[in-house]
């Protein structure tokens, strides 16, 4: 008996010293490794608390656009396809799919062992119900346009779904992997789901205290490998520095920050900070349909007068990377392929002269204040740089509602923006830069060449061919200075060292909570 106690004591001491050795300093990981500091494996069980600054603003997946809502619901609902950690398309609720030779019929083979959280079985009827409802404008689903080329959805049998398309759509599979296209049970209503989400994901919705927390529990009936954690609580702590404090005192074990200044304060031997490059991009949107900007030379003058690295350094402490239009790893644009890859004031003045505006022009710019930390600093730096060639950028920082109103109305010459990116370039830019895209009015630019390129991109199925086409899209956008792309930034995922197996993603998804767990 006493021997057994002694062995236990020795074991405890060894374990403690191992744990101390594993967290002797605060490591700062490079992208995506997910922190494998300790050799020990994550164990099943445990309750994870994630600190978030705000409550989800909706629990209805088809209309969720807020960061917190999207990534919380991504753990509760399932989609036909999914993305892996490299943003490659992998099977989800659809086990496999086939595209007809003419590209106009897509047949999905569905998983058969799937149930919703309420216990009801998943089958093709749910897929038809979901896709048809999303297509219905009365539903006001935000991803309705992703299904714009779908003309019919049919269910020949309970495990098969057939989509008929008006034109081929190679981007469809990547674009289906969003919680905005979540598959709901055909028995559910929006009203019910607003308070009691019912999905097929690795976690189920357990409880919500408005303005305070949402708790998820492991879904033991999940079709894939079940999650390790018993529960995940998203705890609302409105102030970011208070989240850091709560991590230091051990109340919270994980948080995601955008602001490098906040992440820098999370220094503790018990915490790991992981930087992940994001798909979203900082950009100076130009409105090529207004005033002097209608002349491509005026836009190119702006392009050449800006040193992007300087914007990044002054506004975001250099925490990011200069970028071209396409940010997803598989289709990444080369930022050196643009006109004036480095700042060239002489060339900028030549462009101004060619535009017949040797003395420059005024640029009425909208800037959102408060949406993200760097906006006003970016605008100030751009203002200073452009002033050197006589382009007078004027801006008033706008509160987010006012900014969104003017952005939607395209009521600006230029806009300092942080736009969301997508893994698939057609999903990312087709809606902006094709002449019939639903955001084309805001994008302020389109051309027959671009329309043709985007159409080709949707028809091509070969990956190399698609990459070549979207390189041309990116080149065309920059040669015509449709917008001035600036840089991408990081998110900073702070975790306690005992949390292992979580992989942050470039689209901000928290889907790898399903593989996360605590060691020992």
């Amino acid at each position, binding site marked *: 008996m006493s021997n057994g106690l002694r062995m236990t004591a020795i074991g405890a001491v060894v374990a403690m010293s191992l744990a101390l050795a594993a967290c002797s300093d605060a490591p700062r990981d490079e992208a995506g490794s997910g922190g494998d500091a300790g050799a020990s494996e994550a164990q099943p069980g445990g309750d994870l608390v994630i600190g978030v600054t705000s409550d989800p*603003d909706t629990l209805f997946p088809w209309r969720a656009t807020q960061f917190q809502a999207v990534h919380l619901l991504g753990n509760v609902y399932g989609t036909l396809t999914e993305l892996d950690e490299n943003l490659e398309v992998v099977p989800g609720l659809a086990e496999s799919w086939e595209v007809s030779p003419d590209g106009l019929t897509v047949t999905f083979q569905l998983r058969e062992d799937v149930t919703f959280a309420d216990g009801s079985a998943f089958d093709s009827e749910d897929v038809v119900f979901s896709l048809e409802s999303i297509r219905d404008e009365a539903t*006001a689903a935000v991803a309705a346009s992703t299904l714009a080329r779908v003309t019919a959805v049919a269910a020949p049998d309970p495990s098969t779904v057939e989509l008929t398309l008006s034109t081929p759509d190679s981007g469809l599979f990547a674009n289906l992997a969003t919680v905005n296209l979540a598959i709901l049970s055909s028995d559910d209503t929006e009203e019910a789901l607003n308070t009691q989400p019912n999905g097929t994901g690795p976690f189920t919705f357990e409880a919500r*205290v408005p303005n305070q927390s949402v708790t998820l529990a492991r879904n033991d009936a999940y079709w894939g490998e079940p999650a390790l954690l018993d529960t995940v609580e998203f705890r609302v702590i409105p102030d970011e520095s*208070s989240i850091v404090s709560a991590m230091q005192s051990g109340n919270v074990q994980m948080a995601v920050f955008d602001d490098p200044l906040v992440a820098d304060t999370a220094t503790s031997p018990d915490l790991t900070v992981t930087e992940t490059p994001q798909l979203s991009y900082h950009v100076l949107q130009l409105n090529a349909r207004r005033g002097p900007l209608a002349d491509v030379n005026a836009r190119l003058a702006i392009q050449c007068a800006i040193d992007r690295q300087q914007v990044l350094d002054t506004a975001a402490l250099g925490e990011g990377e200069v970028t071209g239009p396409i940010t997803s790893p598989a289709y990444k644009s080369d930022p050196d392929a643009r006109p004036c890859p480095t700042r060239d004031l002489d060339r900028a003045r030549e462009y101004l002269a060619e535009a017949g505006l040797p003395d420059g022009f005024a640029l009425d710019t909208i800037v959102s204040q408060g949406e993200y930390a760097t906006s006003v600093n970016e605008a100030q730096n751009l203002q200073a740089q452009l002033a050197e060639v006589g382009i007078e950028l004027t801006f008033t920082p706008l509160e987010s509602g006012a900014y969104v*109103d003017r952005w*939607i109305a395209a009521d600006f010459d230029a806009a300092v923006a942080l736009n969301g990116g997508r893994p698939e370039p057609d999903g990312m830019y087709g809606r902006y830069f094709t002449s019939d895209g639903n955001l084309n009015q805001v994008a302020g630019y389109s051309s027959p060449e671009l329309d043709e390129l985007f159409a080709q991109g949707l028809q091509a199925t070969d990956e190399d061919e698609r990459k070549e086409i979207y390189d041309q899209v990116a080149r065309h956008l920059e040669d015509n200075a449709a917008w001035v792309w600036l840089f991408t930034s990081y998110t900073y995922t702070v975790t306690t060292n005992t949390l292992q197996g979580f992989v942050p993603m470039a689209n901000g998804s928290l889907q790898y909570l399903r593989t996360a767990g605590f060691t020992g």
Partner: protein
Amino acid sequence: MLDTLVHNGVVRRVAQSVFTLFGVAVVVFVVLRAIPGDQITANLGTEAAALTPDQRAALESYYGLDQPLLTQFFGWLGNILTGNLGFSARAQTSVADLTLQALPVTFELAVLSILLALVIGIPLGMLSASRPNSARDATGQVVGLAGLSVPAFLLATTLTSVLASRFGFNPNGEPFARFFDDPLLNLQQMLLPSLVLGFGVAAPILRTTRTAVLEVASDDFVRTARAKGVPARRLQIRHVLRNALVPIATMTGLQFGYLLGGAVVVEQIFSIPGIGRQVLLGIQQNEYALVQSTVLVIALAFVLVNLLTDLLYRIIDPRVRAA
């Protein structure tokens, strides 16, 4: 009965209050709609640009934005009179429920803060007044100035961050505990926020106390009492402070009213789910009914506190009762 009420001006006060509340209702309603954007753009952000006209119409009808403004206003006001404060789409619960959750939290925080402020402010104020322009007066004044000028967010952030990182003490990192569920944790969670608020509110109370005490101390009856040989401590408390209480009560009531409006910054930093945060979230999301109803509740609380302060005068000072 009615005669006494009319005589004491109670009926007039109530009528005034109703008028004030109606004014508040109109102003909030108008100001909210003057904020750019609506609940749709607040919810969808720039994605709202991608809505087709039919989608937009569906959402406007969902949020009740398709009704004419007058219908919206009187519909809301009519609902208020029947006790229906509206519905929050974001929280998926009624505004009345949200308010019933948040108001007691704010009330508790306000009471604790005021108590702390009185405990700090009155003795320091008396100390300052006891020997004007001396070193102890200067000390009191400096504390008062600090209370007024140190921003709450700075004090709050510093306290939280130092206590959490150095001592691992951070009760506000735990889920919020209601007083009747877990009094011990609740009081721990209220400790820092009420200290920060109390310190800020102590300043005006200190200054008011100092001025009022100095004024009373120069009155004839004080000199008489001193001549009669009333001991100094008894003189200070029973005679001077007692007679200086009216301005102090006014200031305290005023500050208490403000605190009931919700101390937004402090509630944010310490994650206290009070009424201030409820209004702030409502404004950010353009949840019209939520903000309108909550502001009206706050205004009502303010009016009630003022009424109670007036009643308190009658207890403190018999001369008011006679008048």
